[in-house]
């Protein structure tokens, strides 16, 4: 069963890089959706089912923290895993989003292997039964690719 993925970043090129990185993870991708900020991402989530969100924090109009708050307010959306990929690397910011319910945090700049490891870890945790249904699907390990929090 394929996973629908939403990437939220105000940089089009960064979205393209993340898309390419996710495409190399070995996970079967269904719909790949994009949004330029949190507000656009909420509109995407209103229209389509998404299995996991990879989001930046520092964006115009609606940043990642506000977006996370809105998602967690919604009965329908609150269980969608959210991974932050952000240049904002202070421990305080990471603690803040973890407390708000983010599933993982990756600091920019990142190595593609790190995104891969964390995405697999989060998908395994959130959708264990679906992941095991897929023959030959890579399974995340604790090999040093863990989230930054």
């Amino acid at each position, binding site marked *: 069963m394929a996973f629908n993925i939403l990437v939220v970043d105000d*940089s089009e090129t960064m979205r393209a890089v993340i898309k390419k990185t996710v495409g190399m993870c070995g996970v079967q991708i269904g719909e790949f959706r994009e949004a330029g900020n949190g507000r656009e991402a909420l509109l995407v989530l209103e229209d389509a089912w998404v299995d996991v969100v990879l989001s930046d924090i*520092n964006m*115009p109009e609606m940043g990642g923290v506000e977006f996370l708050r809105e998602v967690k307010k919604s009965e329908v959306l609150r269980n969608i895993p959210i991974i932050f990929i952000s*240049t*904002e690397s202070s*421990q305080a910011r990471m603690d803040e989003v973890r407390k708000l319910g983010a599933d993982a945090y990756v600091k*920019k700049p990142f190595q593609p292997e790190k995104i891969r490891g964390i995405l697999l870890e989060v998908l395994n945790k959130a959708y264990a039964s679906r992941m095991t249904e897929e023959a030959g699907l890579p399974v995340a390990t604790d090999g040093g690719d863990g989230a930054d929090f």
Partner: protein
Amino acid sequence: MITDEEKRLLNLAAVEVFGTMYFTPVELLPELPAQDNWHLEAQYIKTEIGFNGPQRARLCFYFPRSLAVTIACGFLGMGPECEVEEAKILDTMREAANMMVGNLLGRLDPEGACVLGIPKAEVVADFSPASLAGGDVLALISDFGFIWALFGR
């Protein structure tokens, strides 16, 4: 005025971002190069981003166009001399500045009390470091010539 510690941290941020994301070595020079060695390009990509809070600064970077094109092509997984749209070059360099200053801020402000701004980027022609004012002028060396920076408060 930029402190020695801020210079040291800016260098660490630049080295990490350019090395990890763009596979392009850069290094902040301890002193500005002599004018004879500037070898200015016809166009530069100017980016601007700041942060506010208990600490504040505004940084402008001037990237040689050849560096920006190479980085944008590599970042997008295209060949080294690909034809890339202007908007994507600006977007790539805006993100580079965002990552550098965000990385710097994470080092300067581990408590997260400061707020990072939204970066801007534009093409500038006839750029000269001699025209920079309102802060400290810095230079980073790269394989594509000098990246110039202006650090203001």
